[in-house]
């Protein structure tokens, strides 16, 4: 099932489209699909037509939906009972130490941008942030208008406080009780550097 994939084989339009649709939980617009896949108008229509057959609600457990100005893969409502049972049974995977670190940044230093989180932690944290957004523990709460591209500001959510059994920020010990002044100054320095766009998030390769 995981047999070798021929690198020289050019994927069909339908294949390109369904791969992109699998990695997006949100509907994807026709324009975004074309940009990602490099398909022209005709290729897009052709591919979507084929996917309409492959993911037809009459036979498939995964269906292609055209909603909210975009396309999306979703489960067939006819399979809802199985999906619900799976959701009940599946225990949420515990958070990694990386996820806890990102959450502690957002809790104590937030709201802050992805770049600032990466700078404080010394490693690129984009994947961890995406996971926490998907779990609803982090949310975009605004934008940093001062920085080029106005990157999103991330903060912890109500869901986060509920999961931690806390009412609010006040239920956590203050930052200066956790680390010394000197260390805090260093953290602030890294945060400051992150706000200067010239500095890329440090240490992508970190020791590897």
């Amino acid at each position, binding site marked *: 099932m995981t047999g070798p994939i021929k690198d020289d084989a050019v994927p069909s339009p339908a294949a390109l489209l369904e*791969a992109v649709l*699998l*990695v*997006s*939980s949100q509907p994807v617009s026709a324009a975004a699909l074309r940009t990602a896949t490099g398909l022209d108008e005709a290729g897009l229509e052709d591919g979507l037509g084929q996917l309409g057959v492959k993911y037809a609600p009459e036979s498939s457990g995964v269906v292609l939906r055209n909603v909210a100005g975009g396309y999306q*893969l*979703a*489960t067939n409502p006819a399979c809802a009972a199985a*999906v619900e049972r*799976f*959701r009940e049974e*599946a*225990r*949420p995977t*515990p*958070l990694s*130490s990386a996820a*806890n*670190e990102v*959450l*502690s*940044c957002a*809790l*104590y230093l937030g709201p802050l941008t992805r770049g600032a989180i990466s700078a*404080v*932690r*010394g490693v690129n944290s984009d994947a961890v942030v995406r996971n926490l957004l*998907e*779990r*609803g*523990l982090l949310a975009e709460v605004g934008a940093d208008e001062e920085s080029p591209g106005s990157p999103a500001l991330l903060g912890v959510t109500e*869901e*986060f406080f*509920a*999961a*931690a*059994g*806390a009412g609010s920020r006040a239920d*956590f*010990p203050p*930052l200066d009780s*956790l*680390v*010394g002044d000197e*260390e*805090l100054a*260093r*953290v602030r320095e*890294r945060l400051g550097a992150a706000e200067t766009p010239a500095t890329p998030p*440090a*240490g992508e*390769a*970190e*020791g590897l």
Partner: protein
Amino acid sequence: MIGESGRALEGFTVELDVYSGPYEWLLALILRDELEIFEVPLRELVSIYLDSKPEGDLNTLERDTDFAGSAAALVLLKSRTLAPAPDEEGGETGEEPVSPEQLAERLTAYLKVQRGAEAIRGRLEANRGFYASAHALRPRPGRLRLDREKLLRAARSTFSRLTDPPVEHLGPITVTLQELAALIRSSLARGPISYEDLVRDMDRLNAAVAFAAALSLVHEGRLALHQPEPLGPLTLRPA
């Protein structure tokens, strides 16, 4: 010059406070822990090697490369000994001398781990490019439990982490001494060239290797180095 045995460093002997005799024996003694690596002055060893090079010998590159390789290994060994890895018990390290048997066992274990790493690399490489579904359901509200102790531990370690020193400048050596020697030779065909011009586009490591290659060519009598004042500009000229 390579001896009949095919070992480039066969004829090289050294005279140090702690040891005098063939260089190869010195390496063997160090490896077998019969000579303390701390006691071997590596700088002096390099000077002895450079002084030992026969005048006008045209074929020393292989010998130089071998020496550079073994000297680098000695530096590595020394630095590892200076900062010993904690042993399995986390207790005292390397008190009793290691027997050749033990050393062989350790190296064998490491060799296997290294091969295992190759197998892993291959598999990871072959499986890059699979991306998982992004349609995972969010856990039901309240199902997720966050360990506050873990969160605070994470906060402490994140905020007190020392910044790693930048290592970008330590790129891998991508050219060999031979390649650089060839580069120097072809550059010299057009006349004298300054060392600064030669290494302008090189990183620090490559520049250092280029300098070693230049020294080697001087010893071979292929070029002359001209430096009118100490620490001043350095010019390479055809000999």
